[in-house]
């Protein structure tokens, strides 16, 4: 096999991913590290990469400690209830106590935050503050670029594999990838690595499958790299069965939070009923979480889903009623609320604004459909999949602490943002903050472990041959068919993506099966996934863009398989509204208020699953 040239970069700390967590990690690491060399690698350009690249209309994780709005303890109570009893209280508390620092810094760097007349931040919810956030990502990227230096930011490099130490496979040594726009490999040798890449969209078949494949609620370029990199080297993962199914405006997937919390709009079914009223009794099945205020997100989904399943849709957000009530006949007030309503979309989900315009929906006159989207597997926002990490030294004990905050079970491998499991509700500001926490911790680790890693050149060469194989496969076999897309010797990454999505949707409880599955269905899905995983060795790529798509698919497949195996292991229905185990339809706190963890062993090609205990550190829920 003829391989392109390799550029090798030695550094102290390698940050993989330049989204909010990665930018936070870059900013923080350089403050503490002095002369250490910190490198960030990103598959796009950090000014617009990651889930916040399109912009945001609100910061959803802000305590407002200086106003006395909330304490970190309040935040932990809210998060544990919203997650139906499962979140690492130490990790959530840690984000909560630090996050205001990050929000105030973002404002100092130029982020426009809505203000009240007295200069205090405006609020749209208990934890949410509205922003003019179209440029939140370039605003967060600038200090990151300045901190570690533009020469240490490698963009358009797709990282495919992590490297472990040749002398100790439980220790990190760096990462390998390729340049998407040059014929070149990159090998990064690092003493510590921080995983700040994304969770996964497009593992489940989305509701729109033509051009609209790209209009997933979570970024289409979030490929589960955080998990696809960590799982294969044996990192212990947690809560990979968890998924988030967002209720959003139909098709454009525009945000609904502001409509519920700020405009106080209702969603009504076709009979004009409010499911939070008609389905109120349903919450009693899920105590103690059912009586939490606010009602946990999955339970609100569940109530609406019962209406949909009973054929009572379409479900309409009554934007018209809410806006007319706020305006109260005053044209100036209507202008203001119209401006705010459109900004909510134009700041962060422009496709929803285009959906309204194309369907002649003026929200003050016409209500809009809402829908439950396809499932997403992520560690930020309302998801909690990710690595099992050590907590902060002053809070975490026993099984929750092994030396360095946010370090995974692999020595020197840290995670933040979507990469950290059981620590949800971070959103943009919390992910930026967790990147900072992980970075400071990584600096400490490197101070204690200053030796350069041992990297095996033969191992690197083998990985590079694996990375390049889809290009070779296509080249070798393209002559076997007169049509590039139909060839018995390979599958294209797009064909593979559709196959993965079909397995996940039909066996893993996707939208087309009413989010419902059971043990025999999951076992059949895992069987089909096994054959699919074998076939990934026959991916074909015509160019480096498609080669990147191949590796994105491989990362998504790791996520999908981990998700199926975790779903099978947890014998209860913990999050109705996200998924249902038809064979175990009830919440079972007595047996399953535990974290489900997994490890993949490459040598034997097997997964092992285990549970870790829940510890009440902050709450007594």
């Amino acid at each position, binding site marked *: 096999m003829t391989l392109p040239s390799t550029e090798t970069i030695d550094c102290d700390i390698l940050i993989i991913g330049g989204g909010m967590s990665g930018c936070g990690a870059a*900013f*923080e690491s350089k*403050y503490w590290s002095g002369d250490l060399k910190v490198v960030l690698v990103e598959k*796009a*350009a950090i000014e*617009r990469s990651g889930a916040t*690249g*399109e912009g945001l209309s609100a910061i959803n994780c802000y305590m407002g*400690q*200086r106003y006395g709005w909330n*304490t*970190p*303890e309040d935040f932990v109570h809210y998060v544990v209830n919203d997650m139906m009893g499962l979140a690492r209280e130490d990790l959530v508390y840690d984000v909560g106590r*630090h996050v*205001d*620092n990050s929000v105030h*810094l973002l404002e100092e*760097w*130029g982020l*426009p935050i809505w203000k009240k007349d007295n200069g205090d931040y405006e609020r749209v919810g208990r934890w949410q503050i509205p922003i*003019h956030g*179209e*440029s939140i990502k370039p*605003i967060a990227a600038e*200090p990151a670029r*300045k901190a570690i230096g533009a020469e240490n930011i490698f963009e358009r490099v797709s990282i495919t594999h992590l490297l472990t130490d040749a002398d100790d496979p439980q220790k990190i040594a760096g990462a390998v990838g390729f340049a*998407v726009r040059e014929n070149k490999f990159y090998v990064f040798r690092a003493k510590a690595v921080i995983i700040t890449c994304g969770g996964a969209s497009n593992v489940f078949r989305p509701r729109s*499958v*033509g*051009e*609209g494949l*790209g*209009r997933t609620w979570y*970024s*289409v*370029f979030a490929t589960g790299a955080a998990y696809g990199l960590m799982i294969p080297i044996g990192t212990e993962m947690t809560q990979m069965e968890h998924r988030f199914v967002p209720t959003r405006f139909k098709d454009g997937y525009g945000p609904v939070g502001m409509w519920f919390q700020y405009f106080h709009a209702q969603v009504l079914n076709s009979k004009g009923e409010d499911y939070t009223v008609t389905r109120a009794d349903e919450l009693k099945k899920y105590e103690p979480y059912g009586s939490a205020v606010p009602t946990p997100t999955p339970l609100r989904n569940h109530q609406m889903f019962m209406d949909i399943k009973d054929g009572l849709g379409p479900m309409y957000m009554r934007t018209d009623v809410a806006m007319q009530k706020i305006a109260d006949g005053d044209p100036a007030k209507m202008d203001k609320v*119209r*401006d705010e309503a*459109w900004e909510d979309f*134009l*700041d962060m989900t*422009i*496709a929803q*604004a*285009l959906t309204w*315009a*194309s*369907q*002649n929906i*003026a929200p003050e006159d016409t209500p809009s459909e809402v829908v439950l989207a396809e499932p997403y597997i992520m560690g930020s926002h309302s998801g909690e999949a990710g690595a099992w990490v050590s907590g902060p030294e*002053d*809070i975490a004990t026993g099984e929750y602490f092994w030396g360095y905050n946010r370090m995974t079970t692999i020595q020197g491998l840290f995670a933040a943002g979507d990469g950290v499991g059981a620590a949800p509700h971070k959103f943009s500001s919390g992910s930026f903050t967790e990147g*900072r926490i992980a970075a*400071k911790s990584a*600096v*400490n680790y490197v*101070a204690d472990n200053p030796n350069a890693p041992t990297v095996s050149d033969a191992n690197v060469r083998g990985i590079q041959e694996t990375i390049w194989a889809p290009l070779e496969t296509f080249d070798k076999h393209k002559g076997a068919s007169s049509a590039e897309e139909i060839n018995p010797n390979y599958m294209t990454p797009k064909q593979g993506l559709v196959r993965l999505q079909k397995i996940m949707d039909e066996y893993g409880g996707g939208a087309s099966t009413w989010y419902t599955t059971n043990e025999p269905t999951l076992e059949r899905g895992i069987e089909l996934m096994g054959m699919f995983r074998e076939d990934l060795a026959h991916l074909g790529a015509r160019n480096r*863009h498609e080669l*990147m798509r191949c590796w994105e698919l491989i990362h998504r497949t790791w996520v999908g398989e981990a998700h199926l195996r975790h779903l099978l292991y947890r014998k209860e229905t913990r999050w109705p509204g996200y998924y249902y185990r038809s064979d175990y339809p009830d919440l079972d706190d007595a047996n399953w208020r535990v974290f489900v963890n997994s490890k993949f062993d490459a040598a034997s090609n097997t997964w092992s699953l285990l549970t870790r205990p829940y510890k009440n*550190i902050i709450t007594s829920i």
Partner: protein
Amino acid sequence: MPTYVDPNACNACQGEHQGPLCVYICPNDLMVLDQDINKGFNQEPEMCSECYACVKLCPTEAIHVRGYADFIPMGAEVQPHRTEDGLRWDVRFRDGRTFEFTYPSRTKPVGSVVLYEGFTEHRQTDLDNQSLAGDSLWLGVDRLPTPN
């Protein structure tokens, strides 16, 4: 489709030191230059999230969005135009109604960030504790909370 390039308006970013800006900025490696005609185009429209990163950055406003064929009725347009500190959006409905919205994007110019200004955390003695850089200045409370 979803982004498309008006070939009459695209000049392949002549004079821009980063090369064609849509190619530079696209978070999903979609915008590329057709070498034969020297115009940008979207090479994989079904992987486009209509994030508008390229639309916002295009110096000649050559890039537009034609909504997803799956579910967007034809005829509408949402197009941003850069202002000094933000964006002005022209929204045209399918039925011809038009709206204009203008929002700020930033309060300070690009490039104005000063790193760690006024931070007091000590780089050695505070390395072992739970503080983050700038806590004393920016956390908003006197002391970093610890659980009761």
